[in-house]
């Protein structure tokens, strides 16, 4: 069997999501599924999320929206109207996945919840993404990215002690929730191929985002300590409680550099000192240091300071690009703190042909390529983001509606 459009070629996904689930549907599209975004007539309200392409506040130009709704078709449909609801049910009969992010209880009111939908299509896999999950005392709680970052504990690990905890400025929790939603959906698909039955995937964004905390939660259960935000200081890596700066100012921005243990650490320390020496910036005590027997996790604060102070002075004299180039050449561990511009000019990504240029409304949009490279099939952006209701006729025709039916639906506000 050949799968011309990718691994999920031939599967259909109905995507009724708002922000929490955009990336989830996109992942199915990356893998080749047909993804139909179902928006209320007039378009998904989140199409008005700023910023916009060329700062034009047009509902089809929201950067956030078009970032994560590529690889999808758009059908506008009022699922609260009988006719719209019937069309949705008709589509559900012909679909494999449904992604939704409505507040818990909303679909129950419309009798479009899992218990109803499984009757209509027992093979359906329904992915529900909510801030806190569909059960438990907080199932009805509201939360946007800020709230989810707070509830996941991740925020408590970010920031300076003299200011409140801080989130990542670009929303991240929606991405965590979406990727885990897609994973749950694929688990269910693998199961369905053996049992013939679909299932309901209940994805709490809070729990998905807890993974961003890395190993920090285990400090509480293992030793009853609570890791805290520590700014630019690296913590949580040593039994001695060592903490040292890991972000340094450079000529045109910042560089991430740390002391490290083992062989890779010894190479890193030795090589940066060599590089400093070439510029006449390596003090004698660093040139003479026995790096093979140095473990930063057991070093005193004074010793760490004696090493990092000259390093910090040195890093002030190099640029981000220079650092990346030399670090790779010399096997020094560390990277510049990139901006979007730095990432886009990274020669490594260019050599791997990572970026995908996709024309959209007169602009050439640059997207990250696939999240994985499969030897047998393509993964990544296949189709630009859809305009509002762009595929209405194409989709409704398949359900047996004529052009005039579609016109009438438009007049009645169904689509």
């Amino acid at each position, binding site marked *: 069997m050949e799968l011309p459009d990718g691994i999920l070629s031939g599967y259909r996904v109905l995507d009724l999501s708002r922000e929490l689930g955009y990336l989830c549907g996109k992942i199915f599209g990356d893998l080749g599924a047909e993804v139909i975004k179902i928006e209320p007539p007039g378009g998904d309200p989140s199409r008005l999320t700023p910023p916009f392409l060329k700062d034009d506040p047009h509902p089809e130009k929201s950067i956030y929206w078009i970032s994560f709704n590529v690889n999808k078709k758009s059908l506008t449909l009022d699922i609260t109207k009988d006719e719209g609801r019937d069309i949705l049910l008709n589509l559900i009969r012909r679909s494999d996945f449904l992604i939704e992010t409505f507040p818990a209880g909303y679909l129950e009111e419309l009798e479009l919840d899992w218990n109803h939908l499984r009757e209509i299509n027992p093979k359906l896999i329904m992915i529900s993404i909510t801030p806190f999950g569909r059960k438990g005392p907080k199932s009805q709680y509201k939360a946007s990215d800020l709230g989810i970052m*707070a509830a996941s*504990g991740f925020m*408590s690990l970010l920031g300076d002690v003299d200011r409140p905890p801080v989130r990542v400025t670009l929303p991240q929790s929606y991405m965590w929730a979406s990727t885990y939603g897609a994973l749950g959906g694929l688990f269910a698909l693998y199961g369905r191929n053996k049992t013939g039955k679909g299932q309901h995937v209940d994805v709490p964004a809070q729990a998905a985002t807890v993974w961003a905390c890395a190993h920090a*939660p285990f400090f509480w259960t293992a030793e009853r*300590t609570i890791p805290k935000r520590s700014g630019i200081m690296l913590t949580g890596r040593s039994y001695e409680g060592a903490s040292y700066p890991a972000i340094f100012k450079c000529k045109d921005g910042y560089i991430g550099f740390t002391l490290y243990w083992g062989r890779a650490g010894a190479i890193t320390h030795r090589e940066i000192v060599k590089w400093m020496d070439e510029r006449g910036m390596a003090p004698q005590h660093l040139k003479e240091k026995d790096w093979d027997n140095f473990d930063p996790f057991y070093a005193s604060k004074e010793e760490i300071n004696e090493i990092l102070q000259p390093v910090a002075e040195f890093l002030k004299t190099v640029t981000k690009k220079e650092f990346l180039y030399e670090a790779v050449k010399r096997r020094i561990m560390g990277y510049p703190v990139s901006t979007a511009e730095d990432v886009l000019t990274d020669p490594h990504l260019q050599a791997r042909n990572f970026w995908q240029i996709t024309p959209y409304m007169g602009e050439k949009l640059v997207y990250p390529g696939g999240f994985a490279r499969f030897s047998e099939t393509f993964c990544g952006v296949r189709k630009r983001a859809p305009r509002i209701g762009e595929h209405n006729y194409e989709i409704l025709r398949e359900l047996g509606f004529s052009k005039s039916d579609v016109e009438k639906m438009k007049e009645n506000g169904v689509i």
Partner: protein
Amino acid sequence: MREIFDDVKIVEFTQIAAGPLIGRYLSDFGAEVIHVESRTRPDPWRSYPPAKDGTPGLERGYGFAVYNTNKYGITLNLKHSKGPELAKKLVRWADVVIENFTPGTMSKFGLGYQDLRKVKEDIIMLSTCNLGQTGPHAKHPGLGTHLTNLCGFTYLTGWPDRPPYLLYGPYVDYISVCYATIALVSALEYKRRTGRGMYIDISQYESGLQFMTPAILEYTVNGRIVTRDGNHSPCAAPHGVFPCKKKDTWVAIAIFSEEEWEKLCRLMGMENLASRFKAFEERKKHEEYIEEIISKWTVKFNPKEIEALLQENGIEGVAVEDMKDLFEDPQLSLYMWENFKHPVIEDYVVQKIGFELSEETTKLKRPGHLLGEHNEFVWTELVGLAKEEFEQYKNIGVFD
């Protein structure tokens, strides 16, 4: 009990987090997973903090126990002359091979994808590393923490007037874990549909960048570099984190609509503010002033108290939970944590995948394994070595 992946066998040459968690997720849902280490080079995650009671030791590492729950653990020294030969026996047993060495290492042992295909034609092999298997920087060693800087997340975290902050851990490693598992299950689906295996190259850098897409578009189309902006948002105001009663306790509050703003003002007993800063633009313009007023109100409450009060009134107010709070959170107790027992660590809490499937119940099977704990079982029962053969290999040190 039938489990989703009860027909999937995985052998993993992986260490730390980005590799082992992939196998862990599938093992939770029934896959048989063999984690390969050697006594000369045990998984470094075993010795990583935190450890039971803060005392390091190979069998005391907490993270290792959590990320390797449900697996079988064996030791095999790939550098031993018989090592690769035995590794191929594992591959013959497996459907999937996962590895997270530096690119080129598996090939050096004669265990690259093309080598493995000769052993088992439809094998699925997944390699995950920092920057991907190819490209000019492929072999540059790196840490997930540094990769988080390279991807751009660090630059976006913090206050405009201060340097960017670390994202605590190797943030990007964990993004790549979910994407790699998605890729792996996709490959299993591909094999089911076509009968063919495949090779998967996961560049953690590239999977991390998926989460950066809007910043990339914003730069390429509008020429603007998105930068860190504390807790502010272009879509909501106020949108911040406010102090609570006890020192260093906080609540996050986000107001997206005029209706929510009115409710908040009523709750604070400051109805006059509701009309004064009704429009979003007004609230955004006076955000600092508004934040000061809110702080004076929130400081009277505990985070849990004010979270409940705000939510009851239809406002997004969420307590900022610390690592201790996570284990007392009723939602996470339902979805994420499960108590289990380990022979050395004793009681420990396993971090589950976090989502639930309506027709599946997962059951923890085995605690994170001791070094080489399942050697005899795996080599004789699963791989099928005769007992004498196993002893012979053991005596010549292949399992060391």
